[in-house]
């Protein structure tokens, strides 16, 4: 698990909210920092990498636990 500066709790939020929220939050951390994002929407597994690819950010790791998905997003720019 990468070091992260904070955790964003998007549990229970369905599409499109997790992606909308991460786009609003990513600017609040420093370039190079990582946030831990907690989601329950399985669509986020595909959507976060797609969002990262389009916006130039990076998904550095994804972990699936029963009923919970943890996505580590690094601010690249």
């Amino acid at each position, binding site marked *: 698990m990468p070091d992260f500066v904070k955790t964003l709790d998007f549990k229970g939020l369905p599409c499109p909210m997790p992606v*909308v929220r991460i786009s609003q939050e990513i600017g609040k951390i420093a370039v190079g920092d990582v946030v831990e994002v907690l989601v329950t929407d399985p669509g986020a597994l595909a959507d976060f990498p797609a969002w990262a690819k389009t916006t130039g950010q990076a998904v550095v790791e994804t972990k699936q636990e029963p009923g919970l998905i943890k996505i580590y997003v690094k601010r690249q720019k």
Partner: protein
Amino acid sequence: MDVEKEIAALKERFDTLPGAENKLSMIVFSGDLDKQLAAMIIATGAAAMGMKAVLFYTFWGTAALRDPGKKVGGKDILSKMFGLMLPKGRNKIKLSQMHMAGMGTAMIRSLMKKKNVASLDQLYDIAGQLGVQINVCEMSMDLMGFKREEMIPYPNLNYCGVATFLADARESAVQLFL
């Protein structure tokens, strides 16, 4: 051969290619609840992806932009009739299928609440915050007898025609019709 000149010419050509901008242009033609939801989800998603998003509301779609709290006078009889028959705002629109005299639509709205799916009210609010542009077809408004004074307050609302849509669509990487 002047390479620099050629590169400049190519660059200019590239910059003005259709679809060169990181932008979504969408026609919101339908006034159905399901399609309006899809339109708003795609628009807010696009804005989250760093794209500009421009929605062109036309025909039945425009009724969703009416503000139920506003009353305007001075309409002729046909406009009044249209005004009464068409839904007054986004919370009065129906599903395109399974409306079932209101039962289906009410069921979907309560299911959305239960499953925490963003309502149209929330989506319009987020769209406004993310800078999603709403352009309204002036001709449709006129045809249905809607006046600007009865439309919702929305931060990025414009009235225009087909040329504005086409100019936006031409330079957009993504174009959709709903």
